[in-house]
């Protein structure tokens, strides 16, 4: 079985964390406005991403992650794609 891409893994984590359907988790979707995340959800999501990808996401970086595509780009950048 082919390994999942970072994009797939990020989208799965977001869908699971925010309990939304996978088809809602598109690149342009905003975590708070479109996917219903509140401040605690956002903290938990960052923690789960750190866990999954074995990295530390500083608070100022986390604040810039507004859309699903922002999260994917950030993780890809940190993990060297």
């Amino acid at each position, binding site marked *: 079985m082919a390994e999942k891409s970072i994009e797939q893994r990020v989208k799965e984590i977001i869908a699971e964390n*925010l*309990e939304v359907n996978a088809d809602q988790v598109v690149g342009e979707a905003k975590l708070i406005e479109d996917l219903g995340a509140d401040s*605690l*959800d956002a*903290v*938990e999501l960052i*923690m789960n991403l750190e*866990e999954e990808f074995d990295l530390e996401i500083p608070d100022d970086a986390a604040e810039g992650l507004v859309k699903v595509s922002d999260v994917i780009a950030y993780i890809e950048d940190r993990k060297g794609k």
Partner: protein
Amino acid sequence: MGSNWSDRRVVVTGLGCVSSLGNDASTLWGNVLAGQCGIDAVKRFDIANYDCRIAAEVRDFDPAPAFPSGKEVRRTDRFTHFGVYAGWKALEDSGLDLSREDLDQVGVYIGSGIGGLETTEEQHKVLLSRGPGRVSPFMIPMLILNMASGLFALYHKLRGPNFATCSACATGTHALGEAWATIKRGDAAVMFAGGTEATIVPLGMSGFAAMKAMSTRNDEPKKASRPFDRDRDGFVMGEGAAVLVLEELSHAQARGARIYCELAGYGNTCDANHMTSPDPEGAGAARAIQMALRHAGLPTEAVDYINAHATSTPAGDMCEVQAIRRVFGEHALRLAVSSTKGATGHMLGAAGGIETVICCKAIEAQVAPPTINLDHVDPACPLNCVPNVPQERRIDVFVKNSFGFGGHNAVLVGRKFNG
């Protein structure tokens, strides 16, 4: 609505519960009358090394219908699942249409003795094994014991008085009493009140066992909780919740509500005697009963049935017998006094709630529910403890006793509603 404290009357118009013997009041009542027992070997976790390996667990329970989303279920502790569900069942039972209510006049007091012990346990494991940066942002809102009250209000937009009582095993009764007082003083027309508890977890079972408070009759779970019996050896933990709808009388009558009974009085005192042991003379409990009867304007002779706190501990049950004899004198021997903890286990902060639900059904059916496993009544107890089978009898007035670690005594008086 009457303009002062004494004019306003409070009635019970809805019952909801989650328990080992059913997740609605009618199922619970049927099982209590039939002498059923919800206690069994603990299945929720591996309990092989524990002194007490039995409890009255809630099984096959799905909180989802009472919650707005699966996400809300996931970010709340089991005690909140129970409390919110019991409130939702009470709402349904009351027939209240919240869309027609002034929600500033509807409040919630759902107490808990301990709160989210399971969450505390799990997150402490995370802290130790993975460090402080991995502790969940939901830990605090999940474990704080007022969250069942807060979230039930949030889900139904109830903006009236709201907090959570916390007085160990007297919690549920204090919540109901404080809700009664809130309606009496005119601060709400409707109150959802009761208690919830979910402590059948490793810390809960080991902590109470360390106090030597729990039965070790592990081989006979259905026989282990035996209030007033000479062979009792401790309480058996239960879990669940009960929430009742209390309503100002004219408000209930205006909407044609079914009235289970009138909540007529509330007493609240402290033993100030010992951290966990009850006063052997039962003086604090006696004063609480007297206070509740004074508020109800009833003489001791008016009482027909007492639902006792009696948890099946060697010391506690006889202290309560002393308190009852102290208050009621000769009339004590004419009363029916039962403890339903043989059936439900001791639901701690939820106990006063579930037992007040049972009292409401008892006054409706005019039947005193039995104390099960009462094979040989303690020779120090001369009371009619309704051994093993229900007793049909006139019940115009009931008394509900609850006592908690800390020396807390809470007592409710209910009476048949006759207009």
